[in-house]
C-alpha cells in the first residue's frame, strides 16, 4: 500500500485524500493514516513544487559542484557533508562513487553569487581537497518531468 501511495503522490502530490483513496481502491482513513505515518517516519520529506524558473524571467543560476574531500577520522564523510548541507544555498548533497566524493548542487541569483560561495565558504572548509564547479546551462528534465512544453493529445478524437 505504501509503495502505491508513494508512486502516485510522487507524480501528483496535490490530489486530495478522498480522490487518492478512490483511485487506490482503499478507504480514506487508511490513506490518511499511512500518509501521516510516513510523514512522521520522514519517508515523505515534503511536498514541493517543480518550477521551470527559466520561463518566469526570474534570474537563477544552478551549479553542480564536484567536491573531493578527506574524510574525518572516526566520522567518515557524514561530518563533512553536514558542514556543507547546512548552508541554505545548498540544494542537495550526494555522496558519490567514482572520481570525486560529493556532488553538491547550489542555487544562486547570479554566477558571482555561486562562485563567491564556492571560493569563500566551500573551498576553505577544512577537509576539502578540491572543487570543480559546473554551471547548468539548460534544464531538460527534472524529477522525471520533461521541462519542455507538454505534448498535445494527437489522437483522433473518436475511434472505435
Amino acid at each position, binding site marked *: 500500500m505504501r509503495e*502505491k501511495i508513494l508512486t*502516485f503522490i510522487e507524480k*501528483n502530490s496535490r*490530489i486530495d485524500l478522498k*480522490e487518492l483513496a*478512490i*483511485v*487506490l*481502491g482503499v478507504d480514506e482513513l487508511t490513506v490518511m493514516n499511512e500518509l501521516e505515518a510516513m510523514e512522521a517516519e520522514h519517508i515523505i520529506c515534503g511536498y514541493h513544487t517543480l518550477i521551470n524558473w527559466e520561463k518566469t524571467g526570474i534570474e537563477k543560476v544552478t551549479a553542480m559542484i564536484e567536491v573531493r574531500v578527506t574524510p574525518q577520522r572516526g566520522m567518515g564523510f557524514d561530518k563533512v557533508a553536514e558542514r556543507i548541507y547546512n548552508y541554505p544555498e545548498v540544494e542537495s548533497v550526494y555522496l558519490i562513487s567514482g572520481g570525486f566524493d560529493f556532488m553538491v548542487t547550489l542555487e544562486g541569483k547570479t554566477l558571482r553569487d555561486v562562485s563567491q560561495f564556492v571560493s569563500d565558504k566551500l573551498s576553505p572548509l577544512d577537509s576539502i581537497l578540491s572543487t570543480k564547479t559546473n554551471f547548468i546551462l539548460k534544464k531538460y528534465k527534472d524529477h522525471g518531468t520533461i521541462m519542455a512544453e507538454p505534448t498535445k*493529445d494527437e*489522437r*483522433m*478524437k*473518436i*475511434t*472505435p
Partner: protein
Amino acid sequence: MRNPLSKRIVEIEPSGIRKFFDIVNEMPDAISLGVGEPDFDTPWHIRDEGIYSLEKGRTFYTSNAGLKELKIEIARYLQRKCNITYDYNHEIMVTVGGSEAIDIAMRAMLDPGDEVLIPQPSYVSYLPCATLANGVPVVIELKAENEFRLTAEELEEAITPKTKLLVLPFPNNPTGSIMSRSDLEKIAEVIIKHDIFVLSDEIYSELTYGEESHVSIASLPGMWERTITINGFSKAYAMTGWRLGYACGPKVIIEQMLKIHQFAIMCAPTTSQYAAVEALKNGDDDVARMREEYDGRRRYLLHRFKEMGLECFEPFGAFYIFPCIKEFGMTADEFATKLLQAEKVAVVPGTAFGASGEGFVRISYAYSLENLKKALERIERFITKLRNKG
C-alpha cells in the same frame, strides 16, 4: 457508364462512429472520451529499438509470417501469460494489427452461407469482415443483466446447422466486460458439442483488473484445435500506430491465412516487428504500470457514477466503462448528441457497437485523471439538468 462499384461493398453500412467523429472534429474545445486507444506513448525503449532498426538499415521485407525472432517471443509470451503452446514455426503469424488477423481468419475459414456468431455490443469490424468473407453474420445480443458476458444458453440458442464460427471478443470493447474461466468453460462445452470454431479476439488481454487475470479459451481442454487466438501490441504496449498484431492457431488454418496475407499484404511492417521484439522481451513493467494507472481511473469513474446515481456495472477489462442512460428516456445517440452540444463532452453511443448497445454509452478512460475529472463534472451537470426537467 457502368456502375463501377461492387454491390456487396456498397451495401455494407459505414461505421456508426463516423458521424460523431465529424461533429467532434468541428469542436476544438470539446473534451473527448471517445478514443479507443491508449493515451500513453509507446515506452521509450521500444521506440528506441524501432529507431535502431532503421539506423541499422533493416528496411526490407521480413518473411511472410514475420520475423523468426518475434514469433519465438510471441510463443514464449503466450506460454508464460496465457498458458497456451504454439509452435512458432507453423502456428503463429504476425499481422498488420489485430484487424488484419480478424479479416483473414474469416476469409480463410468461411464458405458462402456459413454462419458467424457475433456477440454484440462489440468492436465494429467483425460483422463487415464476416460479410466480406461471404459469411452470414448472426448477432447474439448480449444482456446488461449478465454484465454483457456470453452465456452458454445464448450461444446454444443461436447455433444452427450452418454455424461455423463464433467470435469471442473479450475483454470487450465497448462494455469492458470479461469472461472468467468458469464462464469460458461453460461455453466451451457448447462449442465442442456443436463442433464449431472460435475466433478469440484477445487484444485487451493485458488489461484486466480483477483477481483472476485473463484466461485464453484456447487453453481449455479440447479448445486449442478449434481456436484462432488473436492478439497484438496496440493496447498492451500503447503501440496502435505501429500496426502490429498476430494470429495463432492450428497449422491447417494459419497456413491458409498466411496465403491471403502473403498475396494481400506481404508482411507486417519491419520496423514495428523489431520494436515488438523489445516489447515482449522487456515490456512487462511498462504494461504493469499502465494497467495500474487505468485501474485507478476505472475506480474513479465507477465511484463518480455511483455518486451521480448513474447505473453502471463494474467493468473488469479493457479501458471502457459502459453506463446505462435509459432513465433519461432518450436513445443513446440522442444522449450522446445532446451531451456534446450542451457540455461539449464526446462519448460514443452504445449502438455504434450493435443494436444491443441501445441505452448505453461507451466512455473511454484512456485519458489522464485530470481530464476525466473535468469531463465528469460536465456530465454530472448535464444529467442533473435532465433529471430536473423530467
